[in-house]
Structure formats: structure tokens, C-alpha cells
């Protein structure tokens, strides 16, 4: 066997082994799903007074979105992520979820991205917004970008884990959004009924945290094997004195 053939053989073998490992990892991807509920009754949300130009874009009055509670006390906009046990992963080439500005509101209110992952912030209104990110964890950088034209998109990313990075619009000071940034892909945002699903987890033991901007955080340890589908439920409380 000459050296050239040996080299080719090694490469082929490595490729096959890598593919096998990848297939095994995909095949063994575990899933943790569950629900986050809110205990206690928060204060009522506040009505937002829109200015004239934004008022035309909203058919009905809007309110703050501090606690969005759905069916069976399910709490929306909770960032659920693996706090411990997950290995940092390089940022994916695909973009994160779109953070849109529609009717002078950020939509969605909370999104999650991976550290280094790029995502767009868009202006879907026919008026000017500015996108002002306010990270607190260096080297994540504060940026303030004007979007005077409808359809404009600006690319954002954060290099370091930070839960949450606040986004605001200074032109319309009631507009806020929050971005959870972690250094791996294992996170989810609860839907309107408080449900979440984190998938693609390798077998292992994890600490899962459910973090809400107002109601605080709760953690739970979950051990998953290959292909496991585990559930984890969290109850966040409206703090009491």
C-alpha cells in the first residue's frame, strides 16, 4: 500500500466515521419540553399612549407586555435555556429570528439567539424608528441605528452570552424588546400558553433555567439519554414582599 493510497484510505475512513458520529448524534438528539406557569397575580398592564403617527397604525389600544399570561396560567416570553451542561458551540451560519417593528411595537417581545449569531432587526412601519441595543456584558456593544425607511433591515449580533439584552426605540420610548443570548443552541421561548421545547440535546445532565424579565428565574436539573423526550415544568412567582 503506497503512501498516497494510505492517505486516501485514512481520509475516507475519517469521513465515514464523522458522518457516522453525526448521524449518531442526530439520532440521539434528546428533547426537553414543558410549560412555564405563573403563580400569583401581577399588577394590570398599563395602557400605552401612542403618538399621532403610531396611533394610525394600531387598530386598538395597546398595553405594556410585562406579564403575558395565557391558558392555565401559562407564562409567555420566558427564555428557557440550558444554563449548565451544554458545550459552547460556534455560531451557526443561519440567521436568528427576525426582530420586527410593526405598528410601533417590537415583535416578538422576546427572542433568543446564539452568541455570535447574526439576526436582523427590521422596520415594517412607514415611519422612522431607531434600533437601540443596550447590552451590559462587554464585549457586547451598544448600538443605535436609525431606520427611517419602511423595510429597512439592520444586522445585529452579540459575541458574549447575556440574558437579556434590551432593545429600545428612542423615537417611540414605549417600544422595547429583549434578546436572550447564550453560547449554545439549546434554548427556547415560551409561546402564548407558556409551552416550550428544547431539542437537539446530546445525552447528558443539564441544568435548565426558565428566565422571565419580571418574574425572575427557576432552575431544574434534567438528565436525558439518547432520544429521550423529557418534560420539565417551571412555576415562576410574582414576587411577594
Amino acid at each position, binding site marked *: 500500500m503506497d503512501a498516497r493510497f494510505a492517505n486516501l484510505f485514512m481520509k475516507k475512513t475519517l469521513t465515514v466515521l464523522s458522518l457516522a458520529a453525526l448521524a449518531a448524534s442526530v439520532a440521539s438528539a434528546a428533547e426537553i419540553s414543558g410549560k412555564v406557569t405563573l403563580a400569583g397575580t401581577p399588577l394590570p398592564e398599563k*395602557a400605552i399612549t401612542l403618538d399621532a403617527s403610531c396611533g394610525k397604525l394600531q387598530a386598538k389600544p395597546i398595553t405594556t407586555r410585562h406579564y403575558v399570561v395565557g391558558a392555565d396560567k401559562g407564562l409567555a416570553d420566558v427564555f428557557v435555556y440550558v444554563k449548565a451542561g451544554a458545550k459552547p458551540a460556534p455560531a451557526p451560519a443561519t440567521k436568528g429570528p427576525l426582530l420586527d417593528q410593526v405598528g410601533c411595537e417590537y415583535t416578538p417581545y422576546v427572542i433568543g439567539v446564539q452568541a455570535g449569531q447574526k439576526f436582523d432587526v427590521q422596520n415594517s412601519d412607514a*415611519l422612522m424608528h431607531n434600533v437601540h441595543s443596550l447590552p451590559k456584558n462587554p464585549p457586547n*456593544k451598544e448600538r443605535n441605528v436609525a431606520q427611517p425607511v419602511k423595510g429597512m433591515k439592520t444586522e445585529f449580533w452579540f459575541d458574549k452570552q447575556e440574558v437579556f439584552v434590551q432593545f429600545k426605540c*428612542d423615537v417611540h*420610548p414605549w417600544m422595547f424588546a429583549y434578546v436572550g443570548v447564550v453560547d449554545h443552541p439549546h434554548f427556547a421561548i415560551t409561546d402564548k400558553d407558556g409551552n416550550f421545547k428544547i431539542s437537539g440535546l446530546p445525552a447528558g445532565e443539564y441544568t435548565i433555567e426558565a428566565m422571565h424579565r419580571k*418574574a425572575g428565574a427557576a432552575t431544574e436539573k434534567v438528565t436525558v439519554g439518547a432520544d429521550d423526550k423529557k418534560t420539565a415544568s417551571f412555576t415562576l412567582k410574582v414576587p411577594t*414582599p
Partner: protein
Amino acid sequence: MTRSTHNVWLHRFVCLLAVTTLALVALGGVVTTKGVGMAVPDWPTTYGENMFLFPPSKWIGGVFYEHTHRLLASWVGLLTIVLTIWLWVKESRRWLRWLGVIALVGVVLQGVLGGMRVVFDSHGLGTEFGIFHAALAQLYFLLICSIAFFTSRWWVRQLVVGQAPSPVSSPASAPACRTAGEGACETLTGEGASPTWVSGEARELTSANALSVRRWFVVTSLLILVQLIFGATMRHQHAGLAVPDFPLAYGKVWPATDAASVQFYNAHRMEAAGEQPITAPHIVVHMLHRFTGVVLLFAIIGCAVVAWKRTTAGSLLRKTAGLWVAMALVQVTLGILSILFQRKVDVTTAHVALGALTFATGWMLVLIASRFVAQTAPVTARDEALSPTSEFKPA
């Protein structure tokens, strides 16, 4: 070049500048209350355009307030340039000419600070520059009010020049005195002589009394400055509602500031704008602002009592001190209402503007009292005290 101490139109111009500056302070208050300081993210340009050519069609939302604030600031800057030149050309008192130069330096510095508040916001220094900008605004307003006062007829008429009489404690020491307006008395010492104008009020004040009254005013005015800095710090940190209830604070005289309590407070905050979690230092600054407000109210009442006891009925000091008490009462009420109405913009702006006026009134009282100190001081001390006015020339 003809120079004089009193120029009616110059005085009116400075008064206009003072009113415009107060409007600028109030508009700055609106910008901070609404949390739109960064609605225009660049400086000195506005969204990359010359700020004076920025089209009104783009003055929407927070841009309107921030951009109008910048334009009004430019107008104040222009008026200050005119004032400085006017003073330099027409004013005979050298020290007052230099005050005009200081005002010009101040307004330039203030403009640059406002710009730095924007430019350095992305470096995490926006709040610090904002606090400095707000505090300097108060001092600049004070300086313009002082210049307005120094160019007023009242101030000029209080000049005592020429012979150095014995302490003017009784009308007998001013034999040719004729009353010239309420609270003032002019004594002309003969044809062609320098006028010796002695305030009727000063005649009633002993040197010790005038000094005592002034000391009260100085200390209280300095305390107002401290209070304004607390207020600026609180507002620029968006901690105006760090404690949302009144008269108690989270149900206590002094609220708990441990981590669990702060988390509890944040969980129950439902602010629609400027939403950032509050911290223990925010609460402390807020409470200091409240307590200093109460202390100030009593201090101002104390000043008025002292002024009442040590001046004659109808005197300028007494009347102004009474006005000061009224302002302090309204100011405390506005402060309470700004909490109860959850930082409603008009109430909060009125609170900011009246704060500046209260500070300026305190300083005017210091100046009035200083005038009387000069008039009632023993000869040697008095000559020293009057040195700035030695350039007196009748208009």
C-alpha cells in the same frame, strides 16, 4: 465708545435670554422625562444632516423633542454671543463684561456636554454626561439671571459711591434723602457730586443682620444646588419612579434595598417607558431627593422667618423671601404630584422648571442681601465690598 452701568435695552435682552434659557431647561426636562435623549443618535449632525436643515417632516415622536431642544439650545447660544458682545461694548463695569465672557464659555461648554451625552452614550457614559449637562444648565441659568439682575435699574440704584458715611443705621445719616421708589432712598450730595444712593432697606439693616440673612440664603441656595444634582442624577438614571408611592416608600419611611426587595420592586414596576430595572442606588438617590426636598422646604421657611425678623415691612428682601416660600411649597407639591401621576410629563416638567426658578430666586436673595451687606458694612470692609461697583456712571 460710550459705556454705562445701565442700559434698558441690554437689561431687557438679558431678561429675554433668561426666559429662553428657562424654556430650554424645561424642554431638556421633557426630553429626559420622555426618555428620548437618544432619539437623534448623532451630534452635531442630525441623522447625518445639518441640524438646521433637518426637514420638519422627520420631526416625529422623540425626534421632535430632542431636535427642538437642540435648536432652542442653538438659539440660546446665539443670544449669548450677542449678550457677550453687547456687554463688552456697552457695559462700563469690567467684572460684568467678564461675566458675559464666562456666560459664553459656559454656553459653549454646555452645548458640547449635550453633544457628548449623545456621542458617548454608546460607550456607557451617556448618563454621566447627562447629569453634568443638567447640572451645568442650572448654573448657566443662574449666571444669566445674575447678569439680568446686575443690569437692572434696582441694582444700579443701590450703588453707594463717593463719601463713606458712618454705618447707615438711621435716616439721620442721610440728611438729603428723598424717597425714590419703594424701599429705596437716594441721597444726592450736591450739584455735580457723585450720587450717594442708600437703600431705605439698608438703613434698617445692621451689618450683622445683613450678614446673618445672607448666610441663611447662601447655605440654602447651595442646598438647592445639591438637590438639583440629586434630581438630575435621579432623572437621568430614570429613577424618578424608583419609589412609586408617597408619602411612604414601599410602605416604609426608608425602603429596604436588599437584593430580594429590589427584585420584588422590579417585578411590580409597570412603567410604560424608560423601562430598566431599578437598583438599590437608584432608590437611595430618589430618597435623598425626597428628604432633601423636605429639609429645603423648612430651610426656605427659616430663611423667610429670618428675613421677616431682620428687615422692615415691605422690604424687597422680605417680599422675595415670601415669594420663595410660596415657590418651595408649590415645588414640593409638584414633586409629590409627579410621583402620584407617575411622572406625567407636564407635571414633571413644571417641577424641573420651578426647581431652576427656586434656585435662581435663592441666588437673587443672596445678591440682594450682599448689596445690603455692602451698604451697611463698616467703612473699610465696605470699600472692599464695593470695589466691583467703583466704575459707576449714571446712564
